[in-house]
């Protein structure tokens, strides 16, 4: 192996544009294509400015960076920032429009685990097929076969067609094949978003292993904790351009401060088209920090409100709000309704536009995406319900993590009081602060 200052990946002024027309109406028919070709010809002849410019999506714009051998580089950015496109360019799946990239060494990519798995084939058969697709030689697969099977923990079902596998088994097997590729440069795209916690730990372990063996890793994830734990350096992409390139901790911190939360506000201005029925029509749903705006970030240390505005279309409707908050695992973190009801709710002639605000204290929810389901009930009758009222992201507060860099488990993340006592002999306890 050469010295550590040698370059593994060199990306120079890479841009990638997609023609939106080709993507949106997915399969242009021959006739349409001939027609548009004729239109373009006429436009060119009449030297009219073509409208093509507007229909081009610039996925990457003038991206340049270098990765040293043995370095683990993270790519972060919102959805559509160009992270995956960049990986695809490096994996040679997508050709750059302009620019140039160099890879020094064998490349392996985990753009999507399980690519090329065939439902009808057995686990054993799929290991060989998938290995070949990922670029492994046959004897290489043979050598590592037992190791792959052991890693995937599906020994008993290895001769069963994978269509009978549970999604967890399928995933473990797929990752196991990919993890044993042993490339010099490894591209990883959000593999950690899947599988149970134990398996994620295993995947992370495998990746650290790969990194320790002097291999170069390019890693895309939305999991900022993993980013900080795994990467030496992070590049932040926004709208196809590099915003910042530097030490992981600094770039992640800047990024987190900058990102707006997910669609934390929804509004419907016209009661006629708003979600609802003859009793009620929605006007708005939003999540915002106490005293803040819906675009402000919420962390585990932020108190925030969930607000629902709706029109009461039927003056006789008795409407009691009920809120379910789900986490990313689909677990109901809590289900609440107001404990004390204002007396006007019982009166037929109340206000017609109503806003219910639910105050959520700080240090309650764990980090991650949360979904809010909203319902208006009258006794046991559901008058109106919205399963997907709003989604919001609770970010991790990095300074409050303690020594643990992994994910804090659990649906909630309360900040609880602790104290410690010690005793030399039993019976004489002394308290420490």
């Amino acid at each position, binding site marked *: 192996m050469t010295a550590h200052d040698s370059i593994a990946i060199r990306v120079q002024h890479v841009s990638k544009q997609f023609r939106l027309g080709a993507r949106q109406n997915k399969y242009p028919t021959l006739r349409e294509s001939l027609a548009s070709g004729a239109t373009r010809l006429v436009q060119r002849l009449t030297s009219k400015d073509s409208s093509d410019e507007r229909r081009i999506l610039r996925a990457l714009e003038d991206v340049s960076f270098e990765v040293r051998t043995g370095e683990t580089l993270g790519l972060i950015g919102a959805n559509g920032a160009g992270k995956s496109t960049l990986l695809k*360019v490096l994996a*040679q*799946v997508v*050709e750059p429009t302009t620019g140039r990239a160099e890879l020094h*060494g064998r490349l392996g990519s985990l753009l999507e685990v399980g690519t*090329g798995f065939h439902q009808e084939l057995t686990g054993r058969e799929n290991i060989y*097929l998938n290995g070949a*697709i990922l*670029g492994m030689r046959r004897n290489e697969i043979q050598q590592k076969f037992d190791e792959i099977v052991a890693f995937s923990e599906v020994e008993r079902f290895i001769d069963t067609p994978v269509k009978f596998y549970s999604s967890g088994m399928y995933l473990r097997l797929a990752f196991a094949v990919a993890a044993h590729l042993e490339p*010099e440069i490894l591209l990883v795209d959000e593999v950690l978003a899947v599988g149970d916690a134990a398996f994620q730990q295993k995947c992370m372990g495998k990746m650290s292993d790969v990194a320790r063996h002097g291999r170069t890793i390019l890693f895309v994830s939305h999991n900022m904790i993993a980013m900080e734990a795994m990467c030496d350096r992070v590049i932040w992409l926004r709208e196809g351009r590099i915003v910042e390139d530097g030490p992981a901790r600094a770039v992640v911190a800047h990024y987190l401060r900058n990102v707006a939360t997910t669609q934390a506000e929804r509004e419907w201005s016209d009661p006629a088209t708003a979600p609802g029925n003859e009793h009620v029509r929605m006007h708005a749903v939003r999540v915002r920090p106490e005293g803040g705006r819906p675009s402000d970030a919420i962390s585990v240390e932020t108190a925030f409100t969930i607000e629902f505005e709706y029109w009461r279309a039927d003056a006789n409707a008795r409407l009691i709000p009920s809120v379910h908050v789900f986490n990313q695992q689909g677990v109901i973190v809590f289900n609440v309704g107001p404990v004390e009801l204002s007396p006007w709710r019982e009166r037929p002639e109340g206000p017609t536009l109503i806003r219910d605000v639910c105050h959520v204290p700080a240090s309650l929810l764990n980090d991650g995406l949360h979904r809010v389901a909203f319902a208006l009930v009258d006794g046991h009758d559901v008058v109106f319900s919205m399963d997907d009222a709003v989604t919001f992201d609770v970010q991790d507060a990095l300074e409050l993590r303690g020594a643990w860099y992994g994910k804090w488990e659990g649906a909630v993340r309360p900040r609880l009081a602790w104290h410690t006592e010690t005793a030399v002999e039993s019976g004489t306890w002394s308290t420490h602060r």
Partner: protein
Amino acid sequence: MSVEGSVTVIEPSKGWVSLRLPALWRARELLYFLIWRDVKVRYKQTLLGATWAILQPLLTMVVFSIFFGKLARMPSDGVPYPLFAYVALVPWTFFANGLTLSSNSLVANQTLLRKVYFPRLVIPVSAVAAGLIDFGIAFVVLLGLAARYGVPPTPNLIWLPALVLLALVTALGVGLWFAALNVLYRDIQYIVPFLVQVWLYATPIVYPTSLVPERWRTLYAINPMVGVVEGFRWALLGTSTAPGPMILVSAMAALATLFGGLFFFRRMEKSFSDVV
């Protein structure tokens, strides 16, 4: 690692690109596994399994024998009509399936195209080559049928591999054009079955080449399947039409289609993952 120091340069390709045949050679194991997958999967959920490889040409032969052989009294160069038709249907079925499957191959494997890099040519090539197994099965039945009719194979049998290769090259040549076009225009899905149907009648399967006037035969043989079918009859049944010049014309036409197809395919290749 043995590949240490290997450098991959990624750049936009411009104009007519090279075929990158060395890369295809390096992907031969992948080709093997894809063929193996296609063969393995093809009959996995069917009731009759590989019997279909025999039934397809055999049943067609029965239908042709009844309508063209018995009712229309089609001449068959002195060979029993069922054998005359079946000997043509075996390579034809291989060709028709290869053409259909390779035309659909890129679309059928689109998840692969979007996720991993490998020479894309591997996909249509494996789609055609996987048909060789079916061909082999149907061919054994052909030998049995010839023996049953008491027609011994001629020494010209040694030319058969070359004729099978010609059928393969033709299927692949046309398949490459269609596979690449199919990514852009799904119209191809409707064109291919129709084309195969028309092509069947433009090939001497139900009728003998001797029906075609002598001076038109060279032109006729631009359809490469004419050379293949004539060759099969000549090599297996000893029909007297000396098909040498026709096979030569067919081979040239097939190679021209293949090279055109290869370059077209390579030129279109870069846009596959953008569009699929």
